[in-house]
């Protein structure tokens, strides 16, 4: 496969995954904002931080409100991580590799892009939930179309690889912004507010229902962190993403004599996560752990670019 095609597929998947994750974050923040007495603006601000674009917002707290942030996260074309920007870039990637996509995959992306052209501020106020549902549906139909129609060749693996690298990144950044609510000291405080904060972290990762199946309604920061980092069954957990990254890289590098650095990086993360318990992570410091993994994820991405001749 052409390196350029591989690179476009990889980034297309990353952008779609990013749009999807941002939609989940927005839903979560919107839900929290319904509860009275909360510092809602801070919640919105932290969402922008997870989406990696809070530095584009005015630093003065009074300089923005919920709508500023919604516009920023969803339709602002100046923000390279807004849902609109992500889908536009995903479409550019897709358009450059039309032959590597099935007709249905292209339609899923092209439809998404065409509809977003007509979304305005009114829609953000009136139809926010519909709109976010619809964004998630776009990525679901793209995934579905690739699942049923795409040849299981390199293209399929690059697509999945991009998706999992991005998803691991989003889960890590969610933990990075929210780690303080999961720190052990807050357990002492307890009460409805903490409960609310903890569940919000799960919500943002669309993990609330899945969490119930594993821990029922036993919320503790420890278990929540465990679920999002170490649970190999939950498809947004760090270990799940890295196991899948390993599978994709194994296919892609199969039988080649090329550098296996990125494969080794992915494997060492999986090995580390399978070995370590939540106790150790908290002992060593949750924040340090997350920061380190974010760096590894960036390193992995550049190793991938190198071995497949993306530049």
């Amino acid at each position, binding site marked *: 496969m*052409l*390196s*350029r095609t591989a690179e476009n597929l990889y980034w297309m998947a990353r952008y779609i995954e990013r749009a999807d994750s941002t939609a989940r974050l927005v839903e979560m923040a919107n839900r929290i904002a319904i509860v009275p007495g909360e510092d809602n603006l801070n919640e919105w601000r932290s969402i922008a931080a997870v989406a990696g674009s809070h530095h584009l917002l005015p630093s003065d707290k009074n300089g923005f409100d919920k709508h500023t942030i919604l516009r920023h996260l969803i339709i602002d074309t100046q923000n390279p991580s807004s849902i609109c920007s992500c889908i536009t870039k995903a479409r550019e990637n897709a*358009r*450059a590799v*039309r*032959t590597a996509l099935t007709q249905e995959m292209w*339609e899923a992306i092209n*439809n998404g892009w*065409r509809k977003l052209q007509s979304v305005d501020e009114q829609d953000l106020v009136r139809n926010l939930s519909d709109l976010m549902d619809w964004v998630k549906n776009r990525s679901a139909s793209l995934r579905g179309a690739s699942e049923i129609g795409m040849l299981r060749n390199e293209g399929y693996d690059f697509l999945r690889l991009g998706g999992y690298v991005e998803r691991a990144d989003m889960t890590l950044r969610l933990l990075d912004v929210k780690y303080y609510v999961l720190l052990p000291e807050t357990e002492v405080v307890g009460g409805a507010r903490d409960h609310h904060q903890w569940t919000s972290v799960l919500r943002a990762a669309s993990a609330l229902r899945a969490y119930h199946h594993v821990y029922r309604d036993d919320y503790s920061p420890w278990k929540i962190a465990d679920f999002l980092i170490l649970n190999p069954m939950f498809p947004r957990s760090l270990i799940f993403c890295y196991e899948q990254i390993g599978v994709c890289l194994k296919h892609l590098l199969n039988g080649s004599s090329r550098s296996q650095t990125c494969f080794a990086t992915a494997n060492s993360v999986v090995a580390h996560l399978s070995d370590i318990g939540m106790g150790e992570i908290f002992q060593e410091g949750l924040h340090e752990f997350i920061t380190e993994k974010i760096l590894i994820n960036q390193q992995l991405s550049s190793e991938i670019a190198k071995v497949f001749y993306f530049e």
Partner: protein
Amino acid sequence: MFDEMRGDRAGVRLPYEKINQWLEKAGPELLQQKSAEIEAIFRRIGITFAVYGEGGDPERLIPFDIVPRVFSASEWRKLSRGVIQRARALNAFLYDVYHRGEILKKGIIPESLVYQNKAFLPQMIGVTPPGKVYSHIVGVDIVRTGENEFYVLEDNCRTPSGVSYMLENREIMLRMFPELFSSNAVEDIDEYPGALRRTLEDVAPLSASRVPTCVLMTPGPFNSAYYEHSLLADLMGIELVEAYDLFVDHDKVWMKTTKGPKQIDVIYRRIDDDFLDPLVFRPDSMLGVPGLFHAYCKGNVTLCSAPGSGIADDKAIYMYVPQMISFYLGETPILENIPTWYCAKDDDLKYVLEHLDELVVKEVHGSGGYGMLIGPHETKENIELYRRRIEVNPAEFIAQPTLQLSTCPTMKDGEAVSRHVDFRPFCLVGKQTCLVPGGLTRVALREGSLVVNSSQGGGVKDTWILTE
């Protein structure tokens, strides 16, 4: 004026009988609704083309008209034989002018017209492409003026576009009006991509492996025909490459893949000669592959079409195609040329300037319907302005009589109205010369207009060849 459904008289011509019944039965409401549905589908699939420098919607749709254009089997027999004959003569001409130049030595075509032509590439002299084929896809633009009168308007020997519309127009018709195809026996066109791929493989260098590696080279997603490039690559199952996917090493061409470099045997290039290789052609080109032309001359890769093929579809050379047919093939032309005056000749120039209000005048190097004068449809002021342009540089202009192009029923607000059409079949030249039974019908959507170019408000139709 000849209408292809009504003929010259009242009544309905045989090939259009079923179409006529369908139009009468369906009624305006249904037809209008179907037209709207089709536009929505085209947008969703992304069958668009870009128009440069006009602002507005950067990805525009070519309007699609739902009433098919129909040829009978015997009409098609004549057209296809005529087109194949032309494609063979044009390729023989290209081989000749880049080798011994017999047709010039015999004085049949003036030497200056070839050797001083911008489209003539001196770098190609003495280079022989595999099978002596230069132009592998020849698009011949044909107009009709009567029951048995067909004229060739121009030849396209470089990289004629539009075949994606032929394919997609048929797809959409099959999807929207399946019943039409069960009551009419229409020739299939879906073998086109397979035939194109075989043509490319036919002309691979002898050194190529048993299954040659073919690629389609595009200028990129911002090119107006990008959709067509991606569709054809997809249907042929070959890679769609851009210049920076390729490089030359040891006079061989390679593409950069995730598994390292892979050698390429045949390039179906949809970029102009100028942009092929910055070492030989335009040094400022960002689109080209340095060293590509040298690899080509060494016979390590085949370019389709060959560089320099444009000399065969030059508007001044066009006048001599009938002579080429008798010179190279010893045959009489099956399809006629339109009588053409070349303003470089004094007598012709005098006639043209005296009859500007009756003639169509074109720039020799123009295309896309730009820079054209249609005398009978122009104001006096514009004709005078054009006259001055011709007087300044007569060799840049040719003139032809204003033909009454045939009309076809065309949908307007649910009603069938008459609009002028032309026709472009696509002839493939590899080991064999063949045509898929179909082509692109373009239609001028404005009433009375003779300009069918998509950049000037033209639309497209599905084209049916009825089986015997």
